[in-house]
């Protein structure tokens, strides 16, 4: 197993280098550079720039370096944690990211836990109560969850929270706590605001996962070994949870591997609607503004998370199912 993980990590490294090359090409691909926009902006502000000044800037940013040198500068910096500068924000990319990463990871992880717990419970319930009224009701809810766009759900919930619950919506804190130092009251205020994004972001995923769980469990319940377990005299609860559910979790674990990048990019639109201090909107703006170092840093992070997620999912699958244990 350890050897397997090591080998997989090796492959991951190679893949990352490919991703880096492609990412770098994306930075270089658009005509012009941010420098030209910057010069244009300065001109607009009234100040003209001397050709020497421009040339100095070009030398400083290595605009005319050969492409492999540019790549090496960028890549070696990246590995050391220097992701370049965001032109738009006039800050190092790393600083921008770390500011927002905490809340992003918090919300994403909570959402994942929420949607896993709910979808396993709901999926098991509707599979074991197939074609009953609660199952039909759940099915309707699942299709609503799948088909209603998240931002709409976000808006509806915001109105509901404000009109009915009298909450101050948007963001993760009430105005009074936004810039206050951490305290118990601030934490409670955070919890009060967290449920809306978790519910909104988790809705469609939960609907989909619980559908998958239901279908899969129905297949597994037809397997002979479920009958064997019943023939042993086990209670229905043990038969379902110990013998059936464990063999129905595979697709959920596979999805887990793919949903890891969602931790930083996840549900950008919802984050914008809910005005959340997460990384999604930052990524979105970086793409719009051709803020390339910021955008590519995101791209690299997404790729790394995808690879780690897949490795994690494979390890989890091996733990779950002895038939796919390696070596």
């Amino acid at each position, binding site marked *: 197993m350890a050897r397997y993980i090591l080998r997989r990590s090796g492959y991951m490294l190679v893949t990352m280098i490919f991703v880096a090359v492609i990412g770098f090409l994306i930075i270089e691909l658009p005509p012009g550079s941010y420098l030209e926009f910057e010069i244009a902006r300065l001109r607009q502000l009234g100040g003209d720039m001397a050709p020497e000044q421009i040339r100095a800037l070009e030398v400083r940013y290595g605009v005319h370096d050969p492409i492999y040198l540019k790549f090496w500068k960028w890549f070696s910096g990246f590995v050391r944690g220097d992701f370049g500068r965001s032109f738009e924000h006039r800050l190092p990319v790393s600083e921008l990211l770390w500011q927002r990463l905490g809340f992003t990871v918090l919300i994403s992880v909570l959402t994942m836990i929420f949607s896993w717990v709910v979808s396993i419970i709901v999926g098991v319930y509707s599979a074991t109560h197939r074609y009953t009224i609660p199952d039909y009701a759940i099915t309707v809810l699942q299709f609503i969850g799948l088909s209603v766009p998240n931002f709409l759900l976000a808006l509806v919930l915001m109105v509901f929270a404000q009109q009915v619950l009298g909450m101050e919506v948007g963001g993760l804190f009430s105005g009074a706590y936004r810039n206050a130092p951490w305290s118990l009251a601030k934490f409670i205020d955070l919890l009060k605001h967290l449920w809306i994004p978790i519910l909104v972001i988790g809705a469609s995923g939960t609907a989909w996962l619980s559908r998958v769980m239901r279908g899969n469990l129905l297949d597994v319940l037809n397997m002979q070994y479920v*009958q064997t377990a019943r*023939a042993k005299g*086990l209670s229905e609860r043990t038969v379902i949870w110990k013998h059936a559910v464990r*063999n129905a979790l595979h697709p959920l674990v596979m999805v887990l591997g793919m949903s890891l990048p969602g931790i930083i990019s996840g549900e950008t639109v919802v984050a914008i609607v809910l005005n959340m201090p997460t990384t999604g909107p930052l990524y979105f703006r970086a793409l719009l503004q051709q803020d390339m170092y910021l955008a590519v840093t995101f791209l690299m992070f997404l790729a790394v998370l995808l690879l780690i997620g897949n490795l994690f999912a494979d390890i989890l699958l091996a733990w779950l199912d*002895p038939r796919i244990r390696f070596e």
Partner: protein
Amino acid sequence: MAKQAGSSTTPEGLVVRVRDLHVYFFTDLGVSRALNGVSLDIPAGKVTGVVGESGCGKSVTALSIMRLVPHPGRITKGEILLYREREKQNGHSIVEEVNLTDLDPQGPVIRSIRGAELAMIFQEPMTSLNPSYTIGDQIMEAILLHQQCTRKEAEERAVDILARAGMPNPQTVVRRYPHELSGGMRQRAMIAMALSCTPSVLFADEPTTALDVTTEAQILDLMRELQAAMGMAIVFITHNLGVVAQMCDTVAVMYLGRVVEQAPVEPLFYDPQHPYTRALLRSIPHVGSRTKARLQPIRGVVPDPYATIEGCPFHPRCDYRKPGLCDVRVPATTQVGENHTVRCFLYTEQGEDNG
């Protein structure tokens, strides 16, 4: 050889008695009458063969006795009596009669019987073990459920029963997963699991159909051997008459959800009474038969289970049918010899009106 287990303790030497059992499947396509009045006696400590064509209700009969009829099937009529031997304090044992049809199919009483007194092995050894747990875990699960012992004791028993089931290296096999074993080994593991709590009846639903002939012979030998040693009754479900002749003490022949003839193995093969049994025996080849006579298939096909047939279910295919009788009424079960019963109007005038 294994008579001491039953005959002296239960009134008729029976461990299970099934009377007029009806099991219907209520599907979207209509009602499928899987069992239409099955009456079957399972003698204690003997091997009872249940034979019949596919779809005649062999497996459903076994599942009904286990109370494991899958949805949307239901027992609609009839009773299943289990005679359990209960040890009294003064050393005498009494026989207690339990009507299994009265029990909640998921309730605690039937669950204490399942696995402990009634055990079952299935046709497909490849899929009847859970791929996610080791062989040892799965056998120990049954032992820990029905017997009071520690995990360590349970593991020792699991190794022990695997060894008795002829499993090579039982100490290592308990830590193996099902996919690491061959089909024959898995069926041995299944047998070990089923016998781990020394049941009084073992239902074997075509346990060798999925195995190759050599492995089949080994498994059959093993079952016969374990039956002699442990004294349980075996209900051997098969469509292979050769296996029946080799394995069974008594045989029940089923046709369309009814037992049409039940007899000890020799009278059944040498002196079959029911036209269906006779036709069945004529349709199999005999080793060493010199004549170049063609095999005689049974005329017609099995009607589909959604159809209702008035009278005896076999009459449309029967060479001896009496118009006005066989197509109107169902013959009653008639005694024609020692432990030999048959349901046919050739032997009785008595009928039942339900169809």
